[in-house]
């Protein structure tokens, strides 16, 4: 009950600011919150990253082990992205097997990595048709203050950038850095009527969970789109979101490169 009233008040506040052309935290409509990246936190993982996007926090760990390739790509490594929205991260998350929200989150992050061909899977073959590197990207939510999806996508690519292939541990050669070709960035916008806010905070999300995510690759190409939420999207608004997302994605990629070059 109290939650509902609070949420109602927040919603009104967000909307009234919006009428004045402002966001409640003073950001520009197409501006991300501050991004802080810390790689290498989990020494037992092949790669890891703790990402703060505003107050939203996610840890991603990357583990690798030799395993069987898919029959139709016998000479390529395999990436498996998994997300756990553990109840520690939000009062609305429940323990138990992944629900539709965590499945969607994992699959959209997965598509960004897969379709941008971020990881050079052809260099992850150990023995064609028999043994390739299986890469587990495990997304572990810590604090959901809005837009867990983009934070997860950033943490995932940063953990991959941080990752070393543990070849020596499995007796198949020397360790080498995981070969990365691209840094896909997912950009989520909250749709409010005919306006949109990039990287919505939880308070902003009180207006409704109508979002669209555009994942962008290094040449400004779009590698994944996901409209999420029960709403109807205007075509011209979509085109506007598309333009702004590409620009915002570029900035985040620079930020990732800046912060990750220091550590990895």
């Amino acid at each position, binding site marked *: 009950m109290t939650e509902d009233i609070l949420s109602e008040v927040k919603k009104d506040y967000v909307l009234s600011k919006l009428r004045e052309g402002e966001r409640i935290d003073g950001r520009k409509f197409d501006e991300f919150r501050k991004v802080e990246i810390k790689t290498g936190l989990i020494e037992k993982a092949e790669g890891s990253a703790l990402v703060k996007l505003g107050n939203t926090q996610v840890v991603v760990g990357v583990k690798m082990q030799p395993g069987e390739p898919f029959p139709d790509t016998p000479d390529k490594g395999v990436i498996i992205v998994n997300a756990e929205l553990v109840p520690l991260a939000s009062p609305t998350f429940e323990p138990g097997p992944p629900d*539709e929200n965590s499945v*969607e989150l994992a699959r959209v992050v997965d598509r960004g990595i897969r379709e*941008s061909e971020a990881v050079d899977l052809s260099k992850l073959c150990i023995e064609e048709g028999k043994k390739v590197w299986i890469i587990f990207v495990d997304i572990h939510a810590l604090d959901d203050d809005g837009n867990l999806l983009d934070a997860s996508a950033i943490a995932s690519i940063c953990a991959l950038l941080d990752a070393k292939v543990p070849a020596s541990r499995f007796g198949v050669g020397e360790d080498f850095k995981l070969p990365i070709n691209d840094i896909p960035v997912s950009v989520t916008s909250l749709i409010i009527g005919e306006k949109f806010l990039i990287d919505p905070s939880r308070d902003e999300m009180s207006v409704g969970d109508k979002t669209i995510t555009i994942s962008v690759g290094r040449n400004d190409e*779009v590698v994944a*789109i*996901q409209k999420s939420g*029960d709403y109807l*999207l205007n075509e011209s608004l979509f085109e506007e979101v598309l333009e702004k997302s590409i620009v915002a994605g570029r900035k985040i990629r620079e930020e990732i490169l800046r912060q990750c070059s220091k550590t990895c």
Partner: protein
Amino acid sequence: MHKPERLIVDGKRLDGRKPDELRPIRIEVDFLKRADGSCYLEMGKNRVVAAVYGPREAHPRHIQDPTKAVVRYRYNMAPFSVEERKRPGPDRRSVEISKVSKEAFEAVIMKELFPRSVIDIFVEVLQADAGSRTACINAASVALVDAGIPIKGILTSVAVAKVDGTLVLDPMKEEDNFGEADMPFAFLIRGGKIESIALLQMDGRMTKEEIKEAMKLAKKGAMEIYQLQREAIMKRFLEEEEND
């Protein structure tokens, strides 16, 4: 399935279609007796059945919403619907498809008219080719009309793919597997016009210009499918009139 050398030869696709041509579509309204509304639909080799139950009382009670109907959508594949037998039960792919499809329908059903109730949309894929999610949405849309559920308009769904650098409408399996991008849409059509986008996904690699082109192509295809949906509904309506 092996990758063919080229997917488009002399401007024609592997199955002889032009880039902007749909696969053959067959629609049968009121296919089931038990459901409140139903539809059987073929779209290329896709064979899907949709059923609508409701509005009916939502239980367990804690899922009820006192202000509007709850909409559920269950996309399910028969074990024999794909090349290699699929274990029964939902996998991650069908959970995601069910979610985005549900959200598309929630946006067009007049939920406020039926507080505390539930509207169930069940779609079964008996045979899957590329585009089973779009076929299911098209079938479900007709089943909703058959069930008499008040909606803002018809949902019509179709995908566009990029293959060999060319945008093609309503991709088949080979184009989906070996193409450079796949982009499914669902549009709300009202008064014979496309009003807005209810479902939108994409994976692959496309420039923003290509995305805009894809949208145009999808809209063209959707209008054609919409006509077939309309005809099928009209035909069923006339049959009922005759039987009275």
